[in-house]
């Protein structure tokens, strides 16, 4: 679409919105009245079956004025080191039915009760231009109070993980252009976006919303059970502080205090991954945290990449299991003409950073979930490999 046409289209849509608005004034007045009387929004609704067509039906997140607000008892959380998803920022939340609690585990995802709803909203700080979004690690201006500031961010998609009687189900929702609601997109979606850096650099890519089966591509972490599981809500990922409206607090402590989590030790005694961006922490800890959360859900002894015997989850010893001097198994052209997954001291001769630095399906790793290269991630893993001792000698 040419810029002129796009402008015209926007103008027309705005005109229609005005007409609709005029017609809706009466209804809005009634709603305002209701809101004034009732005050509290509708509570979160757990659907034990089916696939609601709109995200708003769950009442987990809702557009309120210029903000995306979290409903009552919907708890936001962050991870020490997150999965890279094309530089998207993420708002993660968890909600448990009143009177229920999740059981703590030191290694696995917490054991959540039926009725749990986990959400992850992918968004970007806005940038000038149609389809343009900012490539930025500055999260400080994303929020306005406890909600996302929609004047500053563009919502892309919200993925729900819902714990039902038969297990977890994954539901992807894509936000509409007006940012008023998100619609179920079982078969995924594709959005042309342009990343704009602070220095003016531009990168076009297609943002791919996964289909339900692709959700399972990461969230089925055990090929034998083939069931979907959360990834982020493990002790080592969430053992960190969050700036709650009532003040900063460790997330494990907060969830425990709220009754959402039971059986957790004091946060100081729980496992904790490094923050990959915090260069006061050891290089190895940051690299291992990065590999754990970006690769370890497939590359584990039970995950779908166990066909390769290459494991990146947190307990893997620093030897051939982690790829040191290990010949690839089914990499095909993904080798980049290199002989081993990791050659200690030589990132330029190692397959791992080569595949991370590609955005081509068939070469790139992870296989899905990104259409851009995570430059800072490649730099971190390369620096770690460069510092590894040893050699792949006979």
């Amino acid at each position, binding site marked *: 679409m040419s810029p002129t046409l796009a402008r015209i289209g926007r103008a027309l849509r705005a005109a229609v919105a005005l007409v609709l608005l005029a017609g809706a004034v009466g209804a809005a007045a009634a709603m305002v009245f209701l809101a004034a009387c009732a005050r509290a929004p509708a509570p979160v609704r757990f659907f034990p079956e089916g696939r609601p067509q709109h995200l708003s039906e769950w009442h987990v997140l809702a557009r309120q004025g210029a903000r995306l607000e979290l409903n009552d008892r919907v708890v936001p959380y962050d991870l020490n080191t997150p999965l890279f998803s094309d530089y998207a920022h993420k708002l993660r939340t968890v909600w448990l039915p009143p009177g229920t609690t999740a059981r703590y585990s030191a290694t696995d995802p917490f054991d959540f009760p039926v009725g749990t709803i986990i959400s992850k909203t992918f968004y970007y700080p806005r940038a000038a231009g149609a389809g343009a979004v900012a490539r930025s690690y500055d999260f400080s201006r994303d929020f306005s109070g406890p909600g996302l500031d929609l004047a500053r961010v563009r919502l892309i998609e919200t993925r729900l993980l819902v714990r039902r009687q038969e297990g977890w189900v994954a539901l992807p929702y894509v936000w509409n252009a007006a940012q008023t609601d998100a619609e179920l997109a079982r078969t995924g979606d*594709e959005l042309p976006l342009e990343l704009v850096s602070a220095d003016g650099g531009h990168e076009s890519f297609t943002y791919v919303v996964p289909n339900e089966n*692709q959700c399972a591509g990461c969230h089925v972490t055990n090929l034998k059970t083939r069931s979907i599981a959360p990834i982020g809500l493990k002790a080592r990922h969430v053992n960190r502080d969050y700036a709650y409206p009532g003040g900063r607090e460790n997330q494990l402590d907060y969830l425990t205090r709220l009754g959402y989590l039971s059986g957790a030790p004091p946060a100081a005694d729980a496992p904790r991954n490094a923050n990959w961006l915090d260069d006061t922490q050891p290089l190895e800890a940051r690299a291992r945290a990065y590999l754990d959360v970006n690769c370890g859900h497939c590359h584990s002894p039970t995950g779908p990449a166990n*066909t390769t015997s290459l494991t990146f989850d947190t307990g893997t010893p620093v030897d051939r299991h982690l790829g040191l001097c290990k010949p690839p198994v089914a990499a095909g052209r993904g080798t980049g003409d290199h002989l081993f997954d990791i050659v200690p001291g030589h990132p330029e001769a190692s397959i791992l950073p080569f595949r991370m630095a590609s955005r081509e399906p068939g070469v790139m790793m992870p296989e899905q979930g990104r259409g851009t290269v995570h430059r800072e991630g490649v730099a971190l893993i390369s620096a770690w490999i460069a510092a590894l001792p040893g050699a792949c000698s*006979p």
Partner: protein
Amino acid sequence: MRQFGVVCVCVCVAACGQRNTATHPTGLSADEAAFQKRLQEQFLDAKPGTVIEIPPGRHALDRVLTLRANGVTIRGAGADKSILSFKNEISGPEGLLVYGNDFTIANLSIEDTKGDGLKINDGENITIRGVRVAWTAGPQTTNGAYGIYPVRSRNVLIENSASYGASDAGIYVGQSLNVIVRHCHAEQNVAGIEIENTINADVHDNEAVGNTGGILVFNMPNLSQPGHSTRVFKNTVKANNLGNFAAKGAAVASVPAGSGVVVNSNSKVEIFDNDIGNNQTANLIISAYFSTNYYNKPGIDPHYDPYPRAIYVYDNRFAGGGDSPDGLELKTLKVAMFGINGHFPDILWDGYRDEKNLVNGIPPAAERICVNNGAATVLNADGPHKYKNPTTDMAPYRCELPKLAPVELPART
């Protein structure tokens, strides 16, 4: 008023057409995008008993089709009629990715995937029949690795299927148990048909022609299981002389062009009643992991067995071949031993054997390489000593091994 009506129509188009325009980010037409959406929904909704029909036509898709259900059948109207084309693939990298037992796929083609064509991971009772996987621009390093790729699966039947142009192996069965590959055709791949780390496989009545290597039986280190017990019989393995176009480091990058049947580090392999000819390095190669470029101590499981053991070769029909081996070392060896116009014997053994396990200087009876194949002879290339003392003495191979039992699969439709 008239003007207002026009405006209304425009608004509707702008608002409604937003998500379904012809300018799909990956170049699919609106019809193709709609077809893909419907097909994806069928894959999402599949449950035991579901049959997904692929109608005739060439269907452009831009995203992997993933199946996560047992008891599903996917079938087309014929490999030449129902074609799934992944030329515009943006998310995959496979064409079809299957997690499910009791799975059947039949009578369709998968083309130009960025990664593997058809991958089946950890399935039981798998039937692949009349499936053709192809990279239509011919052999290219940028083609996907594997055409038809069941891995860590049990009870696998691949028949009347074909692969063209895979940058690793056309038909590749890895880390599996009880496998039959029959009546298939593999051409223009690096490896035509490869059985790797698999227990109990029958590979018969196939054609492997015009690949870098025809039929491979390999064991790689570090994997879930070492393979053994593969029978290769009644196949036609001819003129596999295509230059190796695998990326370096790929498992098959070390296979010399001109390899007919190759056994590497595997054991209990029986090769009989095949027509093997005009493979210019050698019609049959038996080798150890040391002959690949990949051996190194820290990267290899110390329990890995790199030696081929109990290899039984008999009653094959060899013709031609061995006349133009790939690689300087083999070329030099050939000329030195057999002259410019000569050729290697039909069977080339790299000479690596487990020196710690010899009885009176030869391997125990159950672990030997036995050849009972008329006039066919063996060249022991003396790889361990850099080809210093190659020999053609046949005495070490005059032996017999117990024959392997046929692979039996549970009955299927």
